[in-house]
C-alpha cells in the first residue's frame, strides 16, 4: 500500500493507530450518541410533561428509558472519558503513544460495533426494554421478541472494548512514562484514568459472566436466574451492582481528574494537597467495590448486611469529601480567571456536592426504603452524572479544545452554553427531589392528575429543553470556532502540564524529544520560579536546544482492527437470531479471525519519522 493511500480521508481515520486520532474518534462518536440519548430523554420528558401523557405507549416508554440510560452510561460518558484519556494520557506522561496502538484502535472499533448493535435494535422489533440494570426475570423471560438479547450481547461487547483499553492504559502508565515522571508526579487526570482502568479491569469481568448467564438462560434454557427451576434472581442483582457501583466511579473519576487539572490552571496555584487528591481517588477505587448492596436495600438482605453496607456507604463519602475540600483549598487565595473551563469546573463542584449529599441520604436504610425507585433517586444520580460527570467532561472539552484543534472556543458563547446548561440542569433535576419525596415512582410512563405532581413535572420538562438548547449553543460554538476561531497558540491558559509544552495540535509523534521531568507540574516550573516572597516569576533563561534523538518509530496504520471488529458485529447479530443466525456467527468468526491473524502477522512500526 502506498503512503498516499494511507493518508487519504476516511481511510486514514479507519486505519489510524494514532492515540490522538482515536481519541478524536471516541469524542465524536460519544457526541453523536449524546444527541441520540438526549433525544430519548426529551421524549421521556415530553411524555411526562402533563398528567396522563399521550405521546408514548408504555412499551415505547420502556424502550426509551432503558436505552436512554444504556446510551448515556456506555455510549456517552464512558467513551467521552475514553476520548480524553486516549488523547491526553500518553502526552501527560510524556509518551509518544499508548503501549499497544493497534489494540487501542481495536478497542475503539469494538466499541463502535457494540454501540451500533445496540442502536440497530430500535429498527428491528424494538430496543431493549428491561431497564439498563436488566433485573431478572425482566431480562431472562423469553418472549417472542429478542430485545434483551440485544442488550445482553451489546453490553458484553462494550465491556470487551473497555477491558482491552484498560489493559492498554494500565500497561502504558506502568511502562511508558518519560524519564523522571515518577508515579506521584503524574498529573491527577492521568492518575484518575489509571484508577478507572483498574476499576474496569476488575468490575467488567463480573458483569461479563452475569450477562453470559442471562444469555444462556434466554437461549439455552439454563436456570441461573429462574426461580422456577431453583435459580436465584437476587444473584443477578449482586453481580450487576458488584459491577454497577464501581461503574459509578468509572463515570465520575475522570471528571474529578479533569477538575483537578482545570482548577490549578485557572487559579494559578498548584493543586492543594495533591497527594491527598490522588490517594483519595485510589481509596474511592478500592471502597467502590464494597458498597454495592446499597442498591439492594429493599431486596431483603437482612439487618446485618444492610447495616454493613450502610456503614461502607457513609465511609466512601470521606475520600470524596477530601477531594471537595482540596479543590476549595486550590481556589482559595488563587488569582482566579473565570474562563469557560473554570466555570464548568466550579459548576461541577457545586452540583456534585448536591448530588453527593443526596447520595449519602441513601445510606440510611429506612430512608432509602422510602426513596427506593422514586424520582428522588433519579434526581440524585443525575446531579452526580450530569452535574458531575457531564459538567466535568465539558470542562475538559473547553480546556483541551485549543490543544486538540489549535483554536480557542469562543468565550462568550461558551459562557452562554454554561449558564443555559447550569440553569437547565437545575430546572430539570432539582424538582425531581420533590417529586420523589412526594412518592412519584420511577419508570412509570404516566401519572394521574391531582396527585400534586403536575407543576414540578412541567418544570422538569422545560428544564430538559433548556439543556437541549444549551447543547445547540455548544454545537454553534464548535461550528463557529472551526470557521473563524482564533488560533490558540501552544499554551493559551498558561498551563502546568506537559501537553502545553508542545504545539497545538500536537505533532503526530507528540514530542520531538522525550521530555525529562524534574517535578510535579513540570511545564510550570520550566516557565516560572519563585522569588523570596513566594510569588511566581518568569524564568528568563532560554532552555538549551534539544539534543538530537534517534529515529522515531510510529505505529503503522492498520485496517485489521476495524476488520476484526466488523466480524464481531456480524457475529453478534447472528447470536440474536439462533439457530439460523449460526451462519452469521460462523461468517463473523471467520472475519474476526482473519482480522486478528492479519494483525498478528503485520510488522509493528512504520519506518522513521524524524
Amino acid at each position, binding site marked *: 500500500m502506498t503512503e498516499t493511500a494511507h493518508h487519504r480521508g476516511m481511510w486514514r481515520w479507519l486505519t489510524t493507530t494514532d492515540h490522538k486520532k482515536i481519541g478524536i474518534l471516541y469524542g465524536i462518536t460519544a457526541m453523536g450518541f449524546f444527541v441520540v440519548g438526549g433525544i430519548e430523554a426529551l421524549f421521556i420528558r415530553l411524555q411526562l410533561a402533563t398528567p396522563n401523557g399521550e405521546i408514548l405507549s408504555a412499551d415505547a416508554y420502556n424502550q426509551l428509558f432503558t436505552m436512554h440510560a444504556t446510551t448515556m452510561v456506555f455510549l456517552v460518558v464512558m467513551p467521552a472519558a475514553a476520548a480524553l484519556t486516549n488523547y491526553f494520557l500518553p502526552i501527560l506522561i510524556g509518551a509518544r503513544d499508548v503501549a499497544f496502538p493497534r489494540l487501542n484502535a481495536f478497542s475503539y472499533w469494538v466499541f463502535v460495533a457494540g454501540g451500533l448493535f445496540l442502536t440497530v435494535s430500535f429498527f428491528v422489533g424494538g430496543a431493549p426494554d428491561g431497564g439498563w440494570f436488566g433485573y431478572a426475570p425482566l431480562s431472562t423471560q423469553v418472549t417472542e421478541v429478542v430485545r434483551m438479547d440485544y442488550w445482553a450481547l451489546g453490553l458484553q461487547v462494550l465491556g470487551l472494548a473497555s477491558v482491552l483499553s484498560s489493559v492498554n492504559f494500565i500497561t502504558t502508565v506502568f511502562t511508558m512514562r518519560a524519564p523522571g515522571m515518577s508515579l506521584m508526579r503524574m498529573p491527577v487526570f492521568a492518575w484518575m484514568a489509571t484508577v478507572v482502568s483498574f476499576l474496569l479491569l476488575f468490575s467488567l469481568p463480573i458483569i461479563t459472566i452475569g450477562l453470559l448467564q442471562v444469555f444462556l438462560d434466554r437461549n439455552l434454557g*439454563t436456570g441461573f436466574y429462574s426461580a422456577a427451576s431453583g435459580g436465584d434472581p437476587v444473584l443477578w442483582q449482586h453481580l450487576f451492582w458488584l459491577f454497577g457501583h464501581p461503574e459509578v466511579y468509572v463515570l465520575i473519576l475522570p471528571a474529578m481528574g479533569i477538575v483537578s487539572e482545570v482548577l490549578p490552571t485557572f487559579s494559578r496555584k498548584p493543586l492543594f494537597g495533591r497527594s491527598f487528591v490522588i490517594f483519595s481517588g485510589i481509596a474511592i477505587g478500592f471502597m467502590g467495590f464494597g458498597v454495592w448492596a446499597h442498591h439492594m436495600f429493599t431486596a431483603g438482605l437482612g439487618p446485618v448486611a444492610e447495616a454493613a453496607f450502610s456503614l461502607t456507604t457513609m465511609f466512601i463519602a470521606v475520600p470524596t469529601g477530601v477531594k471537595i475540600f482540596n479543590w476549595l483549598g486550590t481556589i482559595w487565595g488563587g488569582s482566579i480567571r473565570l474562563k469557560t473551563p473554570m466555570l464548568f469546573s466550579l459548576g461541577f463542584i457545586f452540583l456534585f456536592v448536591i448530588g453527593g449529599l443526596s447520595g449519602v441520604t441513601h445510606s440510611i436504610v429506612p430512608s432509602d426504603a422510602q426513596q427506593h425507585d422514586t424520582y428522588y433517586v433519579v434526581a440524585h444520580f443525575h446531579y452526580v452524572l450530569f452535574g458531575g460527570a457531564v459538567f466535568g467532561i465539558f470542562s475538559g472539552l473547553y480546556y483541551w479544545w485549543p490543544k486538540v484543534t489549535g483554536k480557542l472556543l469562543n468565550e462568550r458563547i461558551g459562557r452562554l452554553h454554561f449558564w443555559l446548561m447550569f440553569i437547565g440542569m437545575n430546572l430539570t433535576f432539582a424538582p425531581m427531589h420533590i417529586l420523589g419525596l412526594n412518592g412519584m415512582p420511577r419508570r412509570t410512563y404516566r401519572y394521574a392528575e391531582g396527585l400534586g405532581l403536575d407543576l414540578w413535572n412541567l418544570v422538569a420538562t422545560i428544564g430538559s429543553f433548556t439543556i437541549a438548547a444549551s447543547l445547540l449553543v455548544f454545537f454553534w460554538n464548535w461550528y463557529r470556532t472551526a470557521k473563524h476561531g482564533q488560533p490558540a497558540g501552544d499554551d493559551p491558559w498558561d498551563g502546568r502540564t506537559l501537553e502545553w509544552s508542545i504545539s497545538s495540535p500536537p505533532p503526530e509523534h507528540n514530542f520531538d524529544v522525550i521530555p525529562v521531568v524534574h517535578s510535579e507540574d513540570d511545564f510550570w516550573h520550566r516557565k516560572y520560579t519563585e522569588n523570596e516572597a513566594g510569588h511566581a516569576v518568569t524564568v528568563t533563561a532560554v532552555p538549551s536546544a534539544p539534543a538530537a534523538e534517534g529515529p522515531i518509530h510510529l505505529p503503522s496504520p492498520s485496517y485489521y482492527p476495524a476488520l476484526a471488529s466488523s466480524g464481531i458485529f456480524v457475529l453478534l447479530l447472528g447470536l440474536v437470531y439462533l439457530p439460523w443466525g449460526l451462519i452469521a456467527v460462523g461468517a463473523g468468526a471467520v472475519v474476526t479471525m482473519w482480522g486478528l491473524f492479519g494483525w498478528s502477522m503485520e510488522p509493528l512500526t512504520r519506518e522513521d519519522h524524524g
Partner: protein
Amino acid sequence: MSVALHEEHAHDPAHIRKVAMWVFLGSECLLFGTLISTFLLYRTRTGSGPTAADVFDIPFTSVSSFILLMSSLTMVLAHHSSVRKDYRQMRLWLVATALLGVTFLAGQVFEFTEFVHEGLTVTTSPFGSSFFVLTSFHGAHVAVGVLMLLVTALMSFTGKWRPDAGMDVELVGLYWHFVDIVWIVIFTVVYLLQV
C-alpha cells in the same frame, strides 16, 4: 536507520507485553471468581436431578487433573529451551504441552458425556447449569491455550519468528500456568469439596 536500537528509554517491548499479560490475567481472575461463586451458591440446588456425589468420578478427574498439571512442567521445559535458544527442543516441549492439553480436553468431553447419560445436563438444575458453564469456560481457555502453543511452535519454523516477537513463549507460558492454577482451584472447590 531502520534497525537502530530505538531510544524509547529502554521501553523493552517484551517487558511491556509481559506487564499487559499480567494485567489481563488479573481481569481473568474475576471471570473465574464470579463463575466459581455462582457454582458455590448453586452447588446443592440440584432439584430432581443428580447431585455432585451422584455423578462425580473423582479418580478419573484426578488423573486428568494430573495430566494438566504435568503440562505445566513441559511448559517450563519449553520456556527453558527457548531461553537457551534450543529451538528444536522448544518445539518438542511446546507440542508435548499442547498434546497434554488436548488429552485433558478429551477427558472433559468424556466426562461431560458420562454426566449427560446419568441425567445431568446444563438445563437440569442450577447445579448443572453452573457446573457445566464453569468447567466448559475453563475448557475453552485450555483450547485457546492449545491453539496458542501450536501457533507458536509453527511460527518458530518461519523466518519471521524472533523469540521476542509475537506471542513469545514466556507469554504463552504465563497464560498456560494461569489456566492450570485455575483448574487446581476448580478441582478442589468444585469436585473434591462436593463429594
